[in-house]
């Protein structure tokens, strides 16, 4: 089980608990604003963009090539960017803080 904290673009803090599935699905199931997951989690839409808290980057590892490419031209992307459909929930993520990225 992992406790995952989302900070929305309105600075609302939402902490959720998940056991499996993707972080995107957890966020969508709990109506976290700004996480849409339109494509269902196959890295096709980039509507689940988050910034991992810098101190938690070792929990998630680096973004994959397709994530980096999908965010290449996104003005809000930075080195902490991930598409959270690609983050599988496991104990390793426990305590992680994710800032929901702005979208245009």
């Amino acid at each position, binding site marked *: 089980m992992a406790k995952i904290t989302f900070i929305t673009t309105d600075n609302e803090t939402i902490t959720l608990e998940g056991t499996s599935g993707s972080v995107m699905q957890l966020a969508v*199931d709990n*109506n976290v604003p700004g996480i849409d997951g339109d*494509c*269902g989690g196959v890295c*096709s839409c980039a509507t689940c963009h988050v910034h991992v808290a810098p101190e938690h980057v070792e929990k998630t590892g680096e973004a994959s090539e397709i994530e980096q490419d999908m965010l290449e*031209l996104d003005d809000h992307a930075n080195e902490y960017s991930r598409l959270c459909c690609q983050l599988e929930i496991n104990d390793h993520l426990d305590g992680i803080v994710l800032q929901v990225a702005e979208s245009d």
Partner: protein
Amino acid sequence: MSDHSSHDKTCVIIGASHAGVNLAFSLRKEGWKGEIILFDKDPILPYHRPPLSKAYLSSGDTLDKYALKSAESYEKEDIALQLGFTVASIRREEKTIVLTDGSLQRYDKLVLATGARPLIPSIPGLETANNVFALRTAADVKHIRKALQMDTDKRVVVIGGGYIGLEIAASLRKLGAAVSVLEREERVLARVTAPEMSDFFQGLHTDNGVDIHTSKNVVSIAAKDGINIISCSDGSSFTADILILGVGIRINKELAEDIGLDIENGIKVNASTCTSDDDIYAIGDCTYHYNPHYDRFVRLESVQNAVDQAKVAAAALCDKAPTYDAIPWFWSDQYNVKLQMVGLSNGYTQSFLRKEDDEGIKFSFWYFKGDELLAVDAVNNAKAYVIGTKFIKENKKINKAKLMDTSVPLKPANLL
């Protein structure tokens, strides 16, 4: 802030798939205070449809992994989900819908998110053939998987080489079936992509052991001892235990048609997704709508269109004045190939294939009309997809010589 005029109003949505569900949640986001009631004849908690022909068909996944929203999210947002109900008719004057069980539901605003259904071709013998399936719902997938499990020979014929047909072929191949695809046109994906892309996908399927047969017009089907003999107009015939129909869709426009709404290749809507009745909106696959970027009316079968029209309809229903102005995008996953498409390529006069120097399959196909970039098909190349999107959106002229030069890295600044 403002006086919420929607406070005691009821919005009824017919169809609880991508368009309808997104609309319901977007309505709440936009501040709709009244009732929201979603009807769908499918009894299952609304789910993502694109995985049906892809990961859901080929894996042992349970459907809850693909739910659009959890059951609790509907409760939390006070959205009434009425599943397993079919709407029989609309009474415009009374602002009421009638369900097939005879019950009535009044509305202030009605949204048609009725989508489409598989087209069942009129082929002699089809109605008596064995194990015939189309694929649009989770139940369809369940039936296909079950038929495949029960079948020892696992000979599958897919009629239709469009995206759905090819995705099903790839998924069933993965499940160990012997798959043949019969396409009526000279090439697969003829309606939606360039010959070069068709060649690539035909090769991809052939390499993965799927038999692709083009210029095959199926004229009759004979069922014998539990198997189907499929005959084509050129005299060839194919044997199948399981027959999959992937020949296109028919939109669900009957409810709209019966009450005389404007229909033209789809339910005609304006820039804010309103139909010819001010209190009835339509969104998603069933609509025929104006695309400002391409300056023409289109009907699109896509998640993007469903979701984006839902957002526009929600804003319009909450008394804002939105305009639908999205660049269409699509995707398809087959084997190890991820195809991402942006724009509409119809009417292109010139096209370029750009193959990256990376190992493996990675390229992009760029469609132009004169100097205007119309569309990009990107294969395992998300970078080309997002760059294409940017240039199309911004109506930016692309330097074709630089685009064609693979020694020039794919970056927007390099393509000016």
